[in-house]
């Protein structure tokens, strides 16, 4: 298991989740482990609980039973080391916002209140944009971005945040081939080296690129299907 390292980015024991209070469980008795630095695909049919699991890892959905640890601690909202990119990001189109400003929002958790950012925060956001190849678009309105560019801008926000665990919910949906390639180059490239990336996906064609595959089936336990260690940025 060549992508394994001593540190686990996420670990669950007997985890059960409900998407909303009172709703049926979508995951039951799941024992999962993802070593830090792994690129992990999360697969399963619609309604299996992929989005709910990602939301739980981001601290937005509580465990119904069992335990859940992210970087060694229970998840909670507001953690700077975890970033969730929601399925079909619903950015409010009526709010004027530049790409640069979106990246700077990654520093929100460091100082939520106030009007202006410190120089270090702005520099960090700028570096994040450079890492995802969007530095030249910093002054562009977010509303004018393509789907692929928007995903990269959101990854830049997560990088600016300092996240070491990046959770992407169906990021390939709606992207054309070129945008998918650009997103892949980002997710599997040096910009995210050392970052643990968990991507939920429906497309079996995506799977060979990942270090590890977590499969959720029929509302039952999730299982680890593979860990081939082919990724060059894995932890040794």
């Amino acid at each position, binding site marked *: 298991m060549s992508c394994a390292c001593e540190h686990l980015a996420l670990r669950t024991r007997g985890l059960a989740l409900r998407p909303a209070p009172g709703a049926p469980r979508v995951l039951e008795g799941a024992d999962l482990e993802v070593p830090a630095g792994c690129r992990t695909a999360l697969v399963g049919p619609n309604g299996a609980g992929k989005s709910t699991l990602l939301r739980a890892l981001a601290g937005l959905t509580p465990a119904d039973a069992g335990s859940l640890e992210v970087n060694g601690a229970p998840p909670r909202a507001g953690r700077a080391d975890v970033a969730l990119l*929601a399925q079909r990001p*619903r950015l409010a189109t*009526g*709010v004027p916002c530049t790409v640069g400003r979106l990246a700077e929002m990654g520093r*929100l958790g460091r100082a939520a*209140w106030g*009007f202006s950012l410190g120089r270090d925060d702005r520099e960090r956001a700028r570096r994040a944009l450079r890492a995802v190849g969007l530095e030249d678009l910093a*002054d562009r*309105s977010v509303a004018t971005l393509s789907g692929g560019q928007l995903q990269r801008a959101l990854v830049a926000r997560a990088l600016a945040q300092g996240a070491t665990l990046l959770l992407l919910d169906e990021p390939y949906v709606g992207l054309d081939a070129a945008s998918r390639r650009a997103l892949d180059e980002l997710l599997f490239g040096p910009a995210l080296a050392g970052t643990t990336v968990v991507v939920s996906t429906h497309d079996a064609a995506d799977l060979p690129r990942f270090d590890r595959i977590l499969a959720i089936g029929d509302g039952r336990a999730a299982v680890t299907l593979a860990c081939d260690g082919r990724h060059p940025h894995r932890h040794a």
Partner: protein
Amino acid sequence: MPDAGALSHPFMQRALLAAALCGVACACIGTHLVARRMTFVGSALTHTLLPGIAAAFLLGLPPHLGALAAAAATAALIALAGGKRGGGEDAAIGVAQSALFAAGVVLMASSGSWRDFGGMLFGSVLGVGEGDLAWTGVLAAGTVALLLAGHRALEASAVDEDYARAAGLRPALLRLGLVLLAGAAAASAVSLLGAMLTSALLIVPAAGGLLLGRSLAGAMLWASVIAVAGSAAGLVASYHVEALPSGAAMVAGCCAGFALARLWRALRG
């Protein structure tokens, strides 16, 4: 823009200063409301502030105080009546608007004279006294200060509520906070424009500012320019044209500013 003749009168000086203060406050909070598609809140506040102003009138208190209390009641009603089931926030705002407007009508009827409420409904910007000016200044400055202090959180939750929630913010509470601040800004304007015209100052300059600004802060700045310039132009026009009511002239000035912003946007493509 204000001419020397108009500016030589203390009542015009007070009116212009008050219009500038509440114009900036309403423009800034209004930008948040319009950007978030919450313009219904701005319109609803014109109805929900009525019972507070009427109660203050009947009790001999400043109308601003009553308007502020009514804004708090509006936010509380929206919080209590809202929820994912039953129409959500829109329905809750509609309920708050209907309930509080009805309470306002009852209070006005209880006074036995509807004529006393003319100034309350349409304002009297040229009759703004020192006390009104102080209230307007305090409410407007407080609104803008709180908006600036919370700008990053408000902006992040406006752009992406999911991300804001994951970052530890509470978007629903922030939205209620915005309703409260909109109420405070509206309260700063009630003695100028009255309950019926105040929503124009919340919505029109903000809609224009959002056509011009490339960021939320930029839109707030442009909205403030439209509010201040439009109000001042309207006031001066009303000074020179006796038949032109000052409150309506201020609103017309702001609408002209919006029209210019729309024209500029259309020309830029």
